[in-house]
């Protein structure tokens, strides 16, 4: 047994740390919370500066007084505050059946006000303890022990956040063995925070903090909880939560609101706790536009950015511009804390801007998905994100130190994906069982350990052979209890698109009719974004035959919402990102085995598979699907272990060159195209062919090209 400290946001850090030292001389087990919890009473929010929970002395709540009581009036103020603290704790804890015996709490709440010095004794009528910091251990030592069961119940009550999201009602579920019934149980299982998430949310260092974890490990929840916690602690602070997928607006607003009620019994004040999209739009300010306005710089829109910096670098471009503009006259920082979700989607310039616009001590928290891009080179280091000082030191360091809130946090449990789906996604994403060898790998093999793999044989070293599996602690029990690995990941190959679409439509009909799933439990993912609008029409026609409505996300439905009632969502890979559904159908998976840019295509398939919360169907057709099919089957044949030789640094460099280097292919394609166009035009001129001889889509594409080129004056 040992004493664990959770370092929250404290107003009185020095005394709090001194208190921790004092307590640790006394107790040998239990948890010390600093700056936690925040309790809502009827009319006022009550801050608990420190809390000790352990078997030896039960529950002790501390108030760290800022002054020294000199007069009777002073004393009555302190006594009143402690009484209020007691009252808030009593009513908060009294809500839990497990903590009551009969009508009363099954233990005594101890409250202590700690002063730097006490010149006059407390009034005789005052209840509770009042002492100098040096006498804390002696005072606490007198409090009686509690039994183990009560302590467990207490810890649970204190760490508890009622629900992450209200589980779907699923009233229609009748058959206890149906998929709908399984989901009902899974959703119950993830409705509560785990210990890791809770700790990560409370711990607040005096400076930047990084939160890492796989998709589905609860990063967004941790950030939302952290934001609500900071907001409750400091209602006057300006706290911003920023993100890239607009679908997160809704999710974050829900979470933050729910958590705020938990802390302060009230809605958050969204003018102080701001949810800001990374960029912003014409109708809603974002993080970037807010910073630009604060610096009196013109906020650039996408149109400007695209024509100035190109589509791919549009956001990086506007951030770099604002960064340059503000480097001469650094603006007044405007934020007290900034929390960045989906950090992997933001360019380093954005981080540097946030740094510049955040007040000391730079409370910047960024959460990112370690492996969204599968290739670590795409994931900038902290140095690359924030840069270095003129003396060459890192601007931001995130080393964890003993006796401080952690600055680098890993969330180890993945709730979203079944271990089978995750291993399959990693295998095909990296090309682990690809006949022609790996497509990509990250630089640091130790990352496998951090993302929850357990090495069975070999070692996580460059050049070393290794065999590993998902570690048992990296996924919750319910996957094992409720799902069958054969059904969790299913691979289906077909001769052609029609055959594939018919099968998927039929399956969806079964899901809705027999499996007791609802429309919004299902997500159909299209890997290729460019053709997704037309592609979705063809697929949705198949669904129509079963009388099933569907919609293509972001087209003909609100941009910020992926799911629509009574309609199955179809999404291209960009829209699907950041979203999840229990049942996922990945169409056209052969996409991942075609083309030259294998890294992008493999990443796409990885993202598609990892959208699934329970079941995934990897579908594809034509000859290229065989390559993917083989790899998926090998994963299963190896019992969902990954075994391969980790590439050396040289091999990694080679991989990147081979799979990124597209210039050779591009040159060839321009040559081929020129030749074809020449042939085409000649045939036209000789009246050998008529426009009508071309397929209709080619005709329209030619026209569009002409329109666009004429408009740009580049003919």
């Amino acid at each position, binding site marked *: 047994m040992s004493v664990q400290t959770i370092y929250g946001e404290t107003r009185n850090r020095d005394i709090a740390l001194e208190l921790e030292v004092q307590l640790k001389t006394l107790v040998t087990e239990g948890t010390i919370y600093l700056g936690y919890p925040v309790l809502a009473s009827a009319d006022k929010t009550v801050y608990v500066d420190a809390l000790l929970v352990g078997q030896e002395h039960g529950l002790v709540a501390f108030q760290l007084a800022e002054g020294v009581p000199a007069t009777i009036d002073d004393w009555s103020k302190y006594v009143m505050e402690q009484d209020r603290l007691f009252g808030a704790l009593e009513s908060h804890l009294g809500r839990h059946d497990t903590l009551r015996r009969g009508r009363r709490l099954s233990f005594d709440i101890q409250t202590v006000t700690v002063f730097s010095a006490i010149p006059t004794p407390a009034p005789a009528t005052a209840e509770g303890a009042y002492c100098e910091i040096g006498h804390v251990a002696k005072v606490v030592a007198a409090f009686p022990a509690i039994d183990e069961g009560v302590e467990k119940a207490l810890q649970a009550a204190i760490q508890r956040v009622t629900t992450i999201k209200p589980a779907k009602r699923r009233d229609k579920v009748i058959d206890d063995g149906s998929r709908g019934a399984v989901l009902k149980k899974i959703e119950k299982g993830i409705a509560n925070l785990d210990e890791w998430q809770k700790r990560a949310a409370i711990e607040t260092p005096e400076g930047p903090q990084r939160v890492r974890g796989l998709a589905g490990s609860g990063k967004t929840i941790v950030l939302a909880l952290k934001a609500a916690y900071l907001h409750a602690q400091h209602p006057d602070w300006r706290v911003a939560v920023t993100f890239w997928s607009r679908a997160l607006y809704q999710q974050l607003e829900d979470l933050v609101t729910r958590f705020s009620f938990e802390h302060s019994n009230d809605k958050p004040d969204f003018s102080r706790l701001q949810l800001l999209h990374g960029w912003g*739009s*014409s*109708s809603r300010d974002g993080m970037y536009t807010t910073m630009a306005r604060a610096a009196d710089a013109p906020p650039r*829109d*996408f*149109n*400007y950015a695209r024509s100035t910096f190109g589509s791919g670098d549009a956001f990086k471009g506007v951030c770099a511009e604002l960064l340059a503009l503000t480097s001469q006259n650094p603006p007044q920082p405007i934020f007290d804390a900034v929390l960045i979700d989906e950090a992997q989607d933001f360019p380093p310039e954005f981080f540097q801007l946030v740094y510049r616009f955040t007040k000391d001590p730079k409370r910047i928290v960024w959460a990112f998905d370690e492996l969204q891009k599968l290739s670590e080179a795409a994931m900038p280091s902290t140095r690359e994100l924030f840069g270095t000082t003129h003396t060459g030191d890192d601007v931001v360091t995130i080393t964890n130190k003993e006796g401080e809130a952690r600055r680098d946090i890993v969330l180890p449990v993945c709730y979203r994906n079944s271990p089978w789906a995750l291993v399959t996604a990693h295998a095909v994403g990296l090309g682990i069982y690809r006949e022609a060898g790996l497509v990509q790998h990250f630089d640091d093999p130790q990352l496998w350990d951090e993302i929850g793999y357990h090495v069975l044989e070999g070692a996580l070293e460059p050049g070393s052979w290794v065999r590993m599996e998902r570690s048992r602690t990296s996924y919750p029990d319910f996957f094992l209890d409720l799902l069958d690995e054969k059904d969790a990941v299913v691979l289906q190959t077909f001769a052609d698109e029609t055959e594939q679409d018919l099968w998927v439509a039929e399956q969806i009909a079964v899901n809705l009719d027999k499996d007791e799933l609802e429309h919004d439990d299902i997500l159909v993912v299209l890997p290729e*974004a*460019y053709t997704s*609008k*037309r592609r*979705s*029409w*063809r697929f*949705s*026609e198949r669904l*129509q035959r079963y009388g099933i*409505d*569907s*919609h*293509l996300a*972001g*087209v*003909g*439905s*609100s*941009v910020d*919402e992926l799911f*629509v*009632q*009574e*309609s199955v969502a179809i999404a291209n890979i960009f*829209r699907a990102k950041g979203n999840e559904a229990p049942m996922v159908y990945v169409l056209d998976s052969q996409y991942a085995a075609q083309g030259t840019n294998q890294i992008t295509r493999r990443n796409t398939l990885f993202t598609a598979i990892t959208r699934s919360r329970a079941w995934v169907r990897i579908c594809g057709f034509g000859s290229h699907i065989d390559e993917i099919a083989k790899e998926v089957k090998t994963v299963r044949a190896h019992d969902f272990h990954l075994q391969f030789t980790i590439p050396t640094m040289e091999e990694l460099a080679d991989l990147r060159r081979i799979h990124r280097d597209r210039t050779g292919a591009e040159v060839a394609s321009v040559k081929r195209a020129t030749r074809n166009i020449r042939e085409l035009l000649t045939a036209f001129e000789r009246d050998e062919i008529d*426009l*009508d001889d071309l397929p*209709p*889509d080619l*005709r*329209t*594409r*030619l*026209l*569009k090209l*002409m*329109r*666009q080129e004429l*408009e740009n004056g580049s003919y």
Partner: protein
Amino acid sequence: MVATSRSLRDELVNFLTYLVASEIALYANHVSGDGDQVSWKAPGSKFLEERRKQTYANYRSWLENGAYSALLFDGALLQITYRFAGRTLIEHRLAWVPSPFAMDLELLNNESPVDVFDMYAAGPSSDVELKTPIHFDFDPARAADDHPTTHVSLNSSDCRIACAAPLRLGHFVEFVFRNFYPDVWGAHKYLHDLSREPWGEQTITKVEASQVHLSWAQY
């Protein structure tokens, strides 16, 4: 010849499929065919805003809520609704709603159309194009002296230029594509061959016919 909602529905389904397959349309909604109304089915679409005032907020809301039969490659919307009572046509509303901006075709294809629209809307207002939606309405129930049974409206909701008779799909498509997309019209013979058989007698009155109106050789 009297058409049925079913044959019209079939023709519309084929027409929309062709538009999507030939990339003239970026996207289309499925045809709703419940009972006597042939229109579009847009999951999640809440309501259709008032058509009297034609603001670009209307266009945006239609775009966002999928309130259209087809979204053309340049962002224009086709809204096609026919209503029948048994085998008799009792109403139609056929509209072409052009986008108020000349939007980048590539972007429209790759991104969410509303996002692209918002991006242009955030730009200078001098980019707004003066284009009017055009709608052909057949509405015998509301026919009056100043309200021709079949009419075309431009610019103002008070504008009701009389038409000779209700329009078949072929008429509407020809009007839109021949006039506003001559290149597309020229390249796609399919569009020329949609139905044009008269729905029945002409609906234009003598008075209306004495004024500037729309008529075609069948009448």
